[in-house]
């Protein structure tokens, strides 16, 4: 069995296409690793943009914060966050990575809050960090790949308690499976190796179709594993778990 950080990084990298413009924001070690991995594996012409404003950086050491100046190394240009949001707003980001504390069946995310009594959003029961750019990026980037390192019924819910963002969610990568959004609903595209369909059903807060005939996510290849080790030798991606 492959550790979830490996499985997720590889599954996320595989979803990226050569030549695309791909963006990630704050608190995104797995997307950072997945993008660098894809660039080395099958997407050498992918344009990697991130919230530091660098393009195709070649970090010497991967940062633990994805707004870190380490992500500037090797870039030939710098832009602001404003420039990146503008890029998304005018439909020029092919793929964005976003996450959610809650993700629902419709691919909507909640990064904001769990409301207080009587649905009070101004005095919430739980204040979450906030969606950062997601409320503007999810509806404007051509597609968004969601990822979440926790797969349980509190995370994958029928309806999010607060819609921080909704839009062009395309896939959701978790430690257990890859969801694909199809006709506005998340469906299991592939289940990771060694995950039981019953486990996946039990851990998901909305009804899913999954059984022995569900495709299995191909296990990481030797080349993927070796490249991942080369890209992220310190295992920075593991701080997400």
């Amino acid at each position, binding site marked *: 069995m492959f550790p979830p950080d490996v499985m997720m990084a590889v599954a996320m990298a595989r979803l990226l296409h050569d030549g695309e413009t791909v963006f990630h924001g*704050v608190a995104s070690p797995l997307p950072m690793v997945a993008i660098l991995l894809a660039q080395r594996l099958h997407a050498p012409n992918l344009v990697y943009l991130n919230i530091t404003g660098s393009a195709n950086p070649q970090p010497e050491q991967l940062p633990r914060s994805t*707004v870190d*100046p380490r992500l500037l190394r090797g870039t030939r240009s*710098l832009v602001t966050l404003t420039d990146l*949001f503008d890029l998304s707003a005018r439909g020029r980001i092919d793929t964005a990575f976003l996450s959610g504390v809650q993700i629902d069946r419709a691919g909507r995310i909640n990064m904001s809050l769990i409301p207080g009594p009587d649905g009070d959003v101004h005095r919430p029961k739980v*204040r979450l960090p906030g969606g*950062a750019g997601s*409320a503007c990026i999810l509806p404007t980037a051509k597609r968004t790949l969601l990822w979440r390192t926790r797969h349980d019924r509190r995370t994958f819910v029928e309806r999010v308690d607060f819609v921080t963002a909704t839009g062009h969610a395309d896939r959701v990568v978790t430690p257990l499976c890859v969801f694909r959004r199809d006709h506005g609903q998340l469906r299991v595209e592939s289940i990771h190796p060694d995950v039981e369909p019953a486990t996946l059903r039990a851990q998901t807060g909305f009804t899913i179709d999954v059984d022995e005939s569900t495709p299995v996510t191909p296990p990481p290849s030797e080349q993927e594993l070796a490249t991942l080790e080369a890209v992220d030798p310190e295992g920075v991606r593991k701080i997400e778990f």
Partner: protein
Amino acid sequence: MPDKLMSLAEAIAAVPDGATVALGGNTLHRSPSAAVHELIRQNKRGLNIVKTAGAYDVDVLCGAGVADRVTAGFIGFENEFGMAPLYRRSVEQGRVRALEHACYSVIAGLRAATQGVPFMPVAGLLESDVRTAQGFRTVTDPYSGQEVVAIQAIVPDVAIIHVQEADREGNARIYGTLFEDTLMVTAARRVIVTAERIVDGAQFAAQPELTTIAGWLVDAVVEAPRGSWPCSCAGCYDYDAEYLAAYHAAAKDMASFQRFLEEHVLRDSVLSSQL
């Protein structure tokens, strides 16, 4: 142009209680932390902090009772440290109001202020509960009839920006990422620049293409070496992971947080201890 160099205490003294204060930097990087600490030492109250993505700066201002509103898209310490403990608790307990934005709608509000218009249309956001929770209104494009979200101008009373180099007139160079700092400068009524180094203005004249902030937009310049600490400052120092871990541990309850504040912020010696 006049000499705008002054002490940190003098620059921060001009920030009134209740002010809307924009802070430069992003999460753990190039925050104007020395100025934030001085806001705490001067016991400011009722500030509305404007930032796209904040971390230590916003959190400690919430914990110290300086901020009572936070206008931002994200407040958290990213993966290494996690949630912003005092921001979270202050909002949940009703001491701080989270005026949650998307980062891009903070930018839209600052743009409206910069451009002298009452509002700025912004793409996306239409179907987000952030919009309804904050009462963001919509406007109809008079050409196509399309409905677009309109963000009201955000005019900071003060913007505080930490830079690597400034001259005494306020011309400043930021190395590495700018984040939204230049937009905050143009949107704000008053601009305070804190700088790692005060340099001779002739250096700026020799290569004005590298000047990030034009001095004529700046009101106060403060020499503040290690002025982002415990956050990073590109090319100068990394964030202080040990301090931030200790901060998180101390933030578990208000008594230990107060002791932490006493030791690291309220004592006069804090700045010099970091030199």
